[in-house]
Structures are given as structure tokens and as C-alpha cells.
């Protein structure tokens, strides 16, 4: 049915997310790209759920719950970093350099 197009969209979204994480430097953009990848996975789950049963849709709920928690923690961290360093550019945040 719609499996093929849905998976394609999911793949594109995931690739966009990966590229965003790899290429962008702004922490908030990277954070949004991570969300993008999570949602790409959600789309794939839903698409498969049509054929393989309801388990995929239950997983989507889990993912959304985790993503919400992650958003709360992640945004808080980014906010703390910004207060401390006055920037959210990851290139400048390298305290762990060996």
C-alpha cells in the first residue's frame, strides 16, 4: 500500500537528520536534527505497523515519550551552556580536548 513511499520519506528524513548533525554547528539545530531522526524512525514504525501488527505503533509512543524527556533535558543543557559560554556553537565547546 503506502509502505514504499513511507519508507522513502523516512529514509530521506533520517539522512537529513544525520547530515544536519554532522554538518551544522549550532547546538539547537543539531538537537532538532536528532528529533528529525527520531521522527523518521517513528514513520518507519508506523508504516510497518500496517502490515505487522500494532506493536510498531506502541513503540512510537515509547519513542515520543523518550523524545519529550530528551527535549526537556537537552534544552536545559543547551540553555545552561549558553548561560555559561554565551554561545551554543559546538566548535567553541571543547573542554575535553586531550
Amino acid at each position: 500500500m503506502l509502505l514504499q513511499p513511507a519508507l522513502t520519506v523516512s529514509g530521506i528524513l533520517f539522512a537529513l537528520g544525520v547530515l544536519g548533525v554532522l554538518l551544522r554547528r549550532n547546538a539547537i539545530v543539531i538537537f532538532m536534527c536528532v528529533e528529525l531522526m527520531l521522527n523518521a524512525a517513528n514513520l518507519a514504525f508506523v508504516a510497518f505497523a500496517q502490515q505487522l501488527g500494532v506493536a510498531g505503533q506502541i513503540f512510537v509512543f515509547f519513542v515520543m515519550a523518550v523524545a519529550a524527556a530528551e527535549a526537556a533535558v537537552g534544552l536545559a543543557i543547551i540553555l545552561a551552556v549558553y548561560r555559561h559560554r554565551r554561545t551554543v556553537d559546538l566548535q567553541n565547546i571543547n573542554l575535553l580536548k586531550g
Partner: protein
Amino acid sequence: MAPLPLPPLTLLWVVPALPLAGSLVNGALALVAPGAKRAVSLVGVGVLVLAFAAAALAVLELAQLHPAAPLVVHYWDWLPVGELQVAFALQLDQLSAVMILVVTGVGALIHVFSVGYMHDDPGYARYFAYLNLFVFFMLTLVLGASFPVMFVGWEGVGLCSYLLIGFWFTEQINADAGKKAFIVNRIGDFGFLVAMMLMFWHIGSLDFATVFPKAATAFAAGGPVITAITLFLFLGCTGKSAQIPLYIWLPDAMQGPTPVSALIHAATMVTAGVYLVARCGALFALAPVASATVAGVGALTALFAATIALKQWDIKRVLAYSTVSQLGYMFLGVGTGAYAAGIFHLTTHAFFKALLFLGSGSVIHAMHRAYHATHAHEDAQDMRNMGGLARSMPWTAALMWIATLAIAGIPPLAGFFSKDEILGAAFARGAAQPAWYVFWGMGLGAALLTAFYMTRLMLYTFHGPNRTGDREREQLHEAPPLMTGPLVVLGVLTLLGGALNIPPLLGGGARLEHWLAPVTGVAPAAEASPTIEWALVGSAVLVAALGMVGALRLLKPETLVPARLAPAERGLGRLLWKKWYVDELYDAIVVRPVLWLSREVLWKFVDARVVDGLLVNGTAAVSRAVGWVGSRLQTGEVGVYVVLFVVGVIAVVGAVVR
């Protein structure tokens, strides 16, 4: 060859155990109460006298049985390792009987002498601990029933020799002499070890009772294996018994106390090599090349050392080279196959050489006291500082003259019979192998030199004007009876020792030879005709007389000056005085290259560069380099980590999916 279990002989262990106990007690006293000299003397001398009594009892019992096979007493399994079964067992046969009597008998006399000689020494207890320990190891050496047990004694006497040469170790020269003796002996011990391993490899046992009967079937006569074994054994002998090329330690060993020189470096330990060759007669009989080497090296050493003795001024050094020379005679004897003659000379030599050394000890004692009384710092051992001592020390002089006549080979003293027998055997062997005529000639030449240098020693020490010094002269006194007593006993033995083995030619029964027959076999030496034998005896006596008369005529004690005024030697005299420069030669070709190799290659290259540089510091450098590379990866930038993470995930997924 089954061991005969005899109840009393199981007490054979008492003979070596007594000196060991004495050594332990004296060693403890040396640590706890070094001043308890009375107790030390009592223990030190007492155990030796008791050991002599025990040895005499054991030998008496042996004499009643006079068995054809050695009496082996097995005590415990010492090294049961696979095929190698070594028991700690002692054996008594006619050969070891002679040896234990000599060791404990002469040893006891020398212990008594030491009580007087060492009395004022602060290390008195330590001295007797070492001396007793030496006797224990020497008895282990001669009583051991297998090569390993013998080797324990062999190493032990070397250790005691080292300890006693360096007894006054606070002086560098004494410590060096001890070290030299130990290191040179290591070379010989290496030979002994190799011989043992070869023997085990080919026969599978190291017990005398197994090796000797099997040797004849296990080895082809004159074959390479038996020749190698016997030559390696002989290498061990050249170390322990101071033969060319390893004799160099013995003269330096004279740095030890004089009774030590008498006991260890003249009468007993240095004869261990002769004993070993006689013990292994069954092996040497199969290796004509090795036998000829033994005889040849012995004859050469006898002659060579005698030439050096001609020009030494230190009274003990003359006697040391004389010992080397006389040991050469013994090896000439045993190498010729005349084991009884070699052991006979060993015995008589123990008597007269101990007498000579103890006599020289008594002289040095007197000289030392004289110089000590006037606070002079002259050499108490240099014959140029002596002269005319017969007037103040008549006993010592008379007894040393007896020993001198004996070692020169003047009949009817002990040395005459034994030396004559060796020379006779060598000459008789010459009929079959002409090389032995050369050996005989060398032995005869050495006899001439022996008579000469011994007369020289006596002349310079005891006769002519006194050169000690005007104030010192009144201080020269005869030694106390405790020291002259043993001299008298040894003098009697020197006078009568020849009676042990008077040859049939002179109307005797050759008793020692018959006594030793079960061990050494009946002497195979071809009997020369009586005419030739008389000629040989005559030539030996003639040569000895010639040497003595020559010395009396040529040497002028009146013209000697004290050591500190003496002019330098020239020409041949200098060459002999410098001992043919052998020490310098060894220094140049062995000592210096080894030191150079150790310093320049082993230390500066192998140790400093390879071990320290490459291995130790190299390991650290590699760790640091790896750490540096790792730290480069820790950029602290999240982006880089993510890239690596993604690459990793893709790699893992790719690998799983494929």
C-alpha cells in the same frame, strides 16, 4: 660390586662429620665469643685428633678385610631425578684410606701448629672454623662414592681455600689473591662438570661402582668420547692441582696464613687432582692420548715451576713453586700409569712439604716478632732479610734440612723412594713410547733444579751472616714447643716415610703398592732389568747431589744484601724472578680482553644501550607515543565524535548486513 654392609663401617660418616661439627661450633664461637681461644683450640684440634682416630679405626677394619671391591655405605638418596640417581654414599677403599689418613693426620699436626702460630690473631675462631670446614670437605672429596659427591667436596675445598687465602682480607692484595684462586679454579671446575655430563650421557650413571666397570664396554679404547672425558677431567685437575696452564693461582695463594699454605696449598687440597686421576685410572687407561697429556703436562710443570723457584726471594714463594713442581711429578707418575708411585709421592710430599711450610712459618713467625719488637717495617718473608737463623732457631733449621734432603731425593729419606719410583716408571714406559724418555729427562732436570733451589733456600735462610738488622737480631727466637712439636713429628715421618714402599730392588716389599693393588690394578709398567734400575737410581741420586753441591759452591750468602738495598735483577735472572712473565702474559691475553669486553661491549653497549636504552627506555617511549596518538583523537569537539560514531555505526551495520 654389591656394597658389603658392615655394621661398624656404617659409622664412616663420623670421620667427615667430626670436622663439620667442629667448624659449626667454632663458627658459632667466632660470632658469639671470639675471645674464647681456649675453647676454640680445644674444639678445633680435638675434632681433628678424633677424626684421625676414627679414620685409623676404619682403615684398620678395611685392612682386616682387604676386599677387592670398595666398601660403599649408602646414607640417603640425594638427587633422584629421572634417570639420574645420585645417592649420598661414602666409600672406603685402599686409595681413600691412604688419603683420609694423610688428610686427618697431617691436618691434625697443622692444627696443633696453628694454635701457636695464630694465637695472637683477632680472627682466631674464624680461622679454625674455616680450617675445620676445609677438612670436612676434603674428607667428603676423598670418601665420596660418586662423582657428584666428590664434586661437592671439590667445590667445598675450593671455597675454603678462597676464604683462607683472603683470611686477612683487609689488605687488597690478599683479597685479590683469593679471588684469583677462585676464578682460576672455576675454569678447572667447568672441565670437571663437562666430564661428568659426558659420562652421564654415555653411561647413565655417576657412581664409581657403575662407571668404572662399564667404561671398558661403553667406550672404544682411545676413542674420542673417552679421550674428551678424561681430558676434561684433567682440566679440572690442572685447576685444583695447579698444573700448567692453570698453576698461576697457587703462588699467590701464599698470601694466606702459613699453616694454611702447608695444609691446603701443599699437603692436601692441591693433591686432589692426583687423587682424581688415580681414582679414574680405569678411564685414563682407555685413553692413551689423555694419559700422555697428563704425564707430559706433569713433566713440563715440574721443570717449569722449578726454574721459577730458582730466583724467588720470598721464602713461601719458593716453596709454592716447589709444590707446583712436585705436583707435576705426581701427575707424571699417574699419567704414566704408576698410580701407586704417584700416590706414594703424594703421601711423602705431604710429610716433607708440610714440614717445610711449617718450618718457614716458624721462621716467619720469628722474623715477624723481631720486626714487631723494634717497630721495623721490613718484609718478614724475604730471604734477603734472613740469614744465619740456624744459630737462633736450631730445631727449625735441623728439621727443615731433613725435609730439604728428602725433597731433593737423597736416600734414605722419604722423597728419594717416591721420586725415584716415578722416574723409574716413566723411563720404563719409554721403551714402548719414546715420548716418555723426554718426560723422564724433564723429570730428572727438575730433580736437579729442586736440589739446587732448596739448598739455596736453606743457605740464604739459615746460614751465612744475619741480615735481619742489628737491633732485631737479639729478638730472633725459636718457636714455642707447640709449634716445634708438630715439626718433630713431621720430621720423623719424613725420615721414615719411605719405608712405606721400598721397592724390591732395594730389598723392600713395596707395601703401599700391594696395598693399593685392588684399586689401581697391578702395575703394568714393564720391569726394567736390575742393571738399568740401578743406573736409574744412581743417576737420580747423582743429579740430586750435583744440585746440592752446585748450590753450595755457586751461591755466596755472604754477598747478599737486605731486600731494601738489593739491586734489580738482570738478564735470565730477571726473567725467572718475574716468573717468565706468565702472569703478565695472562693479563694481556685473558684479563685485559675480558675487562675490555665487559666494559666497552657488555656495559657500555649491551647494558647501557640495548638493555637500558632500547628495552627499558624504548618501552616507555612506545607507550608515550601510543598515548600521544590517542590523545590526538580526543579533540573535545562533539562533531568529530559524532562523525566517528556514525562511521563506526555504518561500518558495523555494513558488516552485519553483509
